[in-house]
């Protein structure tokens, strides 16, 4: 197993720069997820690590060795593609053993290794079938099996679950997490789905427009987003953003005026804020609740009942809709006027350039 270092890596296609200088270290046995909206460069970054894409500038190191000019097969990696990329004319066993066959491994040994990998993934009954005779989930398993057989230093996954239906996706997510634990492997996983990122990652790398926005554990990103982009991207449903103005600053934090007139003092560093500055208040739906003492009020536009919980879409002002988390059996109906309570400690403030104001020491949501 191995670590992967990315040092000031850039990638340009013709005159368009898609990766604009990324620095990153993936530690041994770590499960790192690259997440971001489509076109943010996450797949390109993975493909550069794999050796499928040339590196325009900067270095990629695996186990401390610069691999920029090393061909993909000599980097000791295995990759699982979104489209599975199985060899359609070969059986499952031949697909899984292809790399070994190319490396000149003897037939008997090849068979043993393929069987061992097939056992991990329960693929034994399918070994003589062709990919065309398999379901999507089975194909994905074969693709993962093909990676395991090579016994790679690093596993790379490029949106491997995107083509599966929702139920299968959840199942494979659990299996991949288990696989990571069993194989004790370094894994880099690309997805646009923040739920996959949150559930599987040791660390998440949030990318946007070719730049790293933030790197951290799922809860770090959830509780202490460095900017508005990360705050909005991580968490589902997405964080509520409310435009506010700074009324006062003090050692206790920044006081802002909420829609409806109430004041709220958010415990964040106030050094770079002046009274009158336009700020954005960010609060997650989970941190809001309906209650008599609520600081803001509005009428309920939509009620989404998910069984165990309910999401209320509350209109604060004609242009401001917020999502509020409520209990599954909440009696609230459409057109009800509700008061919404929010805890200042759990709120975030963002400057107009999107950067989050730092939470004061010992305060704010747990990091």
């Amino acid at each position, binding site marked *: 197993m191995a670590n992967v270092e990315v040092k000031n890596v850039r990638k340009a296609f013709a005159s368009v720069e898609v990766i604009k200088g990324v620095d990153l270290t993936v530690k041994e046995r770590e499960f790192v997820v690259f997440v971001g909206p489509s076109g943010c460069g996450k797949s390109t970054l993975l493909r550069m690590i794999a050796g499928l894409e040339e590196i325009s500038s900067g270095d990629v190191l695996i186990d401390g060795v610069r691999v920029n000019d090393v061909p993909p*097969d000599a980097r000791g990696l295995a990759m699982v593609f979104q*489209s599975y*990329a199985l060899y359609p004319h070969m059986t499952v066993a031949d697909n899984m053993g*292809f*790399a070994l066959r*190319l490396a000149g491994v003897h037939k008997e040994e090849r068979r043993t290794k393929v069987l061992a990998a097939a056992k991990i993934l329960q693929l034994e009954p399918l070994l003589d079938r062709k990919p065309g005779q398999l379901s999507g989930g089975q194909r994905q398993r074969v693709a993962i099996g093909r990676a395991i057989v090579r016994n790679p230093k690093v596993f790379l996954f490029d949106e491997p679950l995107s083509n599966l239906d929702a139920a299968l996706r959840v199942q494979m997510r659990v299996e991949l997490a288990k696989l990571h634990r069993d194989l004790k492997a370094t894994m880099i996983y690309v997805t646009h789905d923040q739920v996959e990122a949150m559930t599987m990652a040791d660390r998440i790398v949030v990318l946007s427009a070719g730049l790293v926005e933030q790197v951290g554990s799922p809860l770090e990103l959830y509780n202490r987003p460095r900017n508005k982009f990360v705050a909005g991207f991580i968490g589902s449903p997405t964080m509520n953003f409310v435009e506010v103005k700074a009324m006062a600053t003090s050692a206790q934090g920044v006081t802002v005026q909420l829609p409806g007139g109430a004041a709220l003092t958010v415990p964040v560093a106030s050094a770079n804020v002046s009274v009158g500055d336009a700020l954005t208040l960010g609060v997650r739906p989970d941190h809001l609740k309906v209650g008599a003492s609520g600081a803001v009020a509005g009428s309920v536009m939509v009620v989404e009942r998910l069984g165990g919980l309910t999401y209320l879409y509350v209109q604060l002002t004609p242009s401001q809709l917020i999502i509020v988390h409520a209990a599954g059996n909440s009696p609230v109906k459409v057109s009800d006027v509700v008061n919404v309570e929010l805890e200042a400690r759990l709120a975030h403030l963002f400057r107009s350039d999107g950067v989050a104001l730092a939470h004061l020491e010992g305060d704010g949501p747990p990091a």
Partner: protein
Amino acid sequence: MRPKTKRKIGMTFVGWFVALLVAFPIFWMTLAAFKTEIGAVATPPELFFWPTLENFAEVRSRADYPVFAMNSIVISVTATFFAIVIALPAAYAMAFHPSRHTKDLLLWMLSTKMMPAIGVLLPIYLAYRELHLLDTVSGLIIIYILMNLPIVAWMIYSFFRDVPKEILEASRIDGAKPWQQVTMLLVPLALPGIASTALLSIILCWNEAFWSINLTATQARPLTAFIASFSSPEGLFWAKLSAASLLAIAPIVVLGFMTQRQLVRGLTFGAVK
């Protein structure tokens, strides 16, 4: 009658008309081959007559058909084989590692087919004379390889383009070198397409007359030259010429008939995607 049915009947009628128009000369030639020389040139033409095999006997006694046929087979198959072997790496490079000039190159390759062959007859004839390639089987094979390469490379290129590039990327990670990607993945995956390409190339070689007549004399003559030898200065013998032609085209017509599904699939490839 519904307009849809009307249109269907109309299209069927047009289809049959075009097919009959195309097939008529071959049908007429087949009839002529079984007529006497007098019957073949009779006006009005005879549609019903007593068939005879004397033309075939005459043709067989005047020329050694198996020698010509063997030349045709050897030349067509060998030229097709080498054209495909040369086209495979070219198609691989153009399909999976295209450069800024790949499109221009493809168009240029095809444009060589637009030049009339007679425009280069003299230089090629002289070059062949110097290289002692005149009237040799290898000489014809070389010219046929060159003649068919553009179309063969184009077709294989379009079949390769249909192979998802992730499959090749997966194989690169598995350690497949470019030649292994071609032989272990692309050729098996594009085999139906390559087979149609080979069939088309064999047919084009088989029917080629210009180079085979101009570059051969006695040793390397294929069946097209065999036919030509029956249009003699003493006058045209329609029945014998028809019999010779029928003998010359029979093998390729049978091959084409047996493989028509494959051929149609290959030729309409890309058009119906």
